[in-house]
């Protein structure tokens, strides 16, 4: 305990000496203060006492002050500040921990003490994470207060950001620690870690990019199937009517209008049959296209699986903070029936089967949300554990 406490005090002194800790903390405070200055009213965005006539989001259905702040926290506070800027600052502040620790003349002092190398390494690692935890905690508590005081909602869910962001940071920090041990250089380990992060970002982008056409074709197929089912039902109706109409047209007291009706019905039947044929071939084409994209997407997902899920870990907060139902409500009606492809009296609507932008966005989001928390966190933590294991073995076995 004495040793752990000593290491903790030393880590604090080191951070304190570097000043970066305080600079980062001050920046966090500034960002939250700036957020508190922004508000919305019926006219648009409010900045302290001034109002900008820019009714951007306020016009969206379901947009309230509460949601505005939640969105602000998720999109800016979490999505930009914590995951990008604070994480980079965190990495810059902590990247030196291991290279400094194993530098010649200093490591002998630590290794010659009655403390096991494994414990020494893992304690140092935990202290690096503690630094980030402090940063995120300060930011989150401040954000919580802004949400409560300005948005009028006391959302305890935002505190989930603390473990999630620290977890997200720890994926990168474990890599940084291993690289710091191997290269013994702060700059090298920092740059390589950021490169690794960038690769993860590319993979995520590829995942989203390839998911989009796959889902698009899937939806198209679904739409066409629905329309085809409707059309087939209509054919049945038309065929039944055809028998009746023919009887009436062929009867002795048949009026010209009856014959006309029969002819109309026949045309409709013909047209609908053709529609079904077109739909069938359309489904075939869409299936072919989907088949060309799908393997690529699956490959990317396979590569992603053993790697840490940086983006998805952060997205978990949004998943938990804004439930699917209210997301639907906010982003428009999600469950429009397929009826819109056929008019009320069964007439097929002449429109594209391509899902519109909003639908695609919705589908991608739902696809992400369908990935289980276990998959997101489990595989990421597994990756981190493996990296830490390798780093510990390297540290324990090395001659200094």
């Amino acid at each position: 305990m004495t040793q752990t406490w000593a290491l903790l005090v030393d880590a604090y002194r080191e951070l304190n000496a570097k000043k970066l800790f305080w600079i980062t903390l001050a920046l966090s405070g500034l960002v939250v203060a700036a957020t508190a200055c922004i508000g919305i009213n019926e006219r648009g965005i409010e900045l302290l006492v001034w109002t900008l006539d820019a009714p951007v989001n306020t016009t969206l259905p379901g947009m309230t002050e509460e949601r505005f702040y939640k969105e602000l926290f998720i999109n800016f506070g979490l999505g930009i500040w914590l995951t990008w800027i604070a994480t980079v600052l965190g990495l810059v502040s902590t990247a030196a921990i291991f290279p400094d620790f194993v530098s010649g003349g200093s490591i002998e002092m630590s290794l010659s003490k009655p403390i096991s190398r494994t414990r020494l390494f893992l304690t140092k690692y935990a202290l690096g994470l503690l630094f980030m935890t402090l940063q995120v905690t300060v930011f989150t508590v401040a954000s919580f207060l802004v949400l409560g005081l300005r948005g009028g909602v006391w959302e305890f869910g935002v505190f989930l950001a603390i473990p999630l962001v620290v977890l997200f940071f720890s994926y990168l920090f474990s890599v940084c620690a291993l690289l710091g041990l191997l290269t013994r250089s702060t700059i090298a380990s920092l740059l390589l870690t950021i490169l690794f992060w960038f690769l993860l970002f590319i993979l995520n982008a590829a995942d989203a990019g390839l998911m989009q056409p796959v889902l698009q074709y899937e939806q198209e197929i679904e739409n066409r199937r629905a329309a085809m089912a409707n059309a087939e039902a209509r054919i049945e109706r038309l065929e039944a009517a055809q028998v009746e109409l023919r009887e009436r047209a062929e009867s002795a007291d048949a009026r010209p209008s009856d014959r006309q009706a029969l002819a109309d019905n026949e045309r409709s039947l013909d047209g609908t049959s053709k529609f079904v044929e077109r739909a069938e071939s359309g489904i075939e084409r869409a299936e072919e296209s989907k088949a060309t994209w799908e393997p690529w997407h699956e490959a990317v997902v396979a590569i992603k699986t053993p790697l840490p899920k940086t983006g998805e870990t952060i997205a978990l907060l949004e998943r938990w903070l804004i439930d699917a139902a209210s997301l639907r409500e906010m982003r428009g009606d999600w469950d429009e029936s397929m009826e819109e492809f056929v008019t009320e009296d069964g007439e097929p609507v002449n429109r594209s089967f391509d899902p519109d932008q909003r639908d695609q966005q919705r589908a991608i989001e739902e696809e992400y949300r369908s990935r289980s928390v276990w998959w997101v966190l489990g595989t990421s933590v597994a990756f981190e554990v493996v990296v830490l294991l390798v780093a510990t073995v390297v540290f324990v076995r090395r001659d200094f």
Partner: protein
Amino acid sequence: MPGVPGVRGVRGVRGVREVARSVESGACGSEEGRRLGGESRGAGGEERRAMASAAEAISVMGVDKTYRGGVHALRGVDLNVHRGEVFGLLGPNGAGKSTLIKVLMTVIRASRCAGQMLGKPVGHKPTLAKVGYLPEHHSFPGYLTGEQVLDFYAAMTGMKRSERKRRITPMLELVNMHEWAGERVRSYSKGMRQRVGIAQALMHDPELVLLDEPTDGVDPVGRRDIRDVVLRLKEEGRAVFLNSHLLSELEMVTDRVAILVQGKVAMQGTIDELTRDKRRYEVEVELPEGVGVADGVGRVEGGALGDAGEPLSGEALGGLLPLALERGELEVSAVEERRSGTPPTAGLPRREGLTGMLDSGERVEVEGHRVRVWTEEAKVVEPVIDALRAQGVTLRSVRPVRPSLEELFMEAVTNLRTGETLKPGAAAADRKGGRKGKRRDEGGPVSGAGADSNAVEGGAA
């Protein structure tokens, strides 16, 4: 200089049985060592060793270290440091001195090692709480003050806070750094860092202190202070293991020394033991006019016999040995040219000169204007002096010579075959593969042959 606080007498010697158990349990702390420890030795031998090592602060056998990349830094080092003594480890740069200390302090894992430190197998981590260590080229975090350095590293040994608070000031006073206690280490000079480093090594009241080049970068006053500290520690019954290449300093404080050459202990013992057969009397003479010289026997080294480089021979010796011979008091049994022969005393640097033997059996050597008689007895020298005086040879001085540590050291690091001093860190003879210069303080084994090993004569030499 104030005394070391928390003075303890010589620690009680550990129970033999306990040591026996610990030695049996595995001799070396390094991972391989644990497996290898105790191998190839019978239980009886174990016990005997354990009994012998109960009084030892450090007792290691066959310490071997090959670095990744193939540098064979330690080649079976056997070493004993008694409790309560000051032990000096000498050796040229790259001999493996720091590697050995680092193995003891678990900074480096030995390839093979058997032995114990303070009664526990080498590498037993809890034992390190009783060991103080000052690494060579240490660097303390610049953001810590002198006081904080002591506090932090003592805490790392598991020392309680109250105890630390109590000891910091006396420790800083011990090394005369109390006035700088609140200043950051980064503002310290090299000597000041060294002083703080020593205080740090003593903070937790260790039974054994390992100091790797403690006087490195320290001014003469500081060196004297450090020497005083070392002697104080010895008085308190602590064992001190000094690693230094400042031989005169070691000579002043050490009880025993070991000379490490190319990863092997070339000699080990008290300075007295090591120099016993090298003590002698030296008679310095001036030769009379007209002493002739002839070719073929040797070469004048300069001084009274003639100009340096001139041939030296029987006639030149007319003034010396042959004269003594005539009087029947000195019998030369062998006068030989030793340009390529073996030296009269093993390991002395090869010099040109002549040797003889006195009736009483002592060896006598003539070199330049010096006559050396290998004896500690003044009486033995008397007939030689008489003979020289009778020939009108003027004596400049007669004095007993006890070889210095430097002479021992030079002997250990001189290649007997070529007479060259081993170059530090020059050998890549036994490197298996390309090494990427990972370590800067251990330049690898020196080239050529060691005092007791002529085995490694690689292409590098």
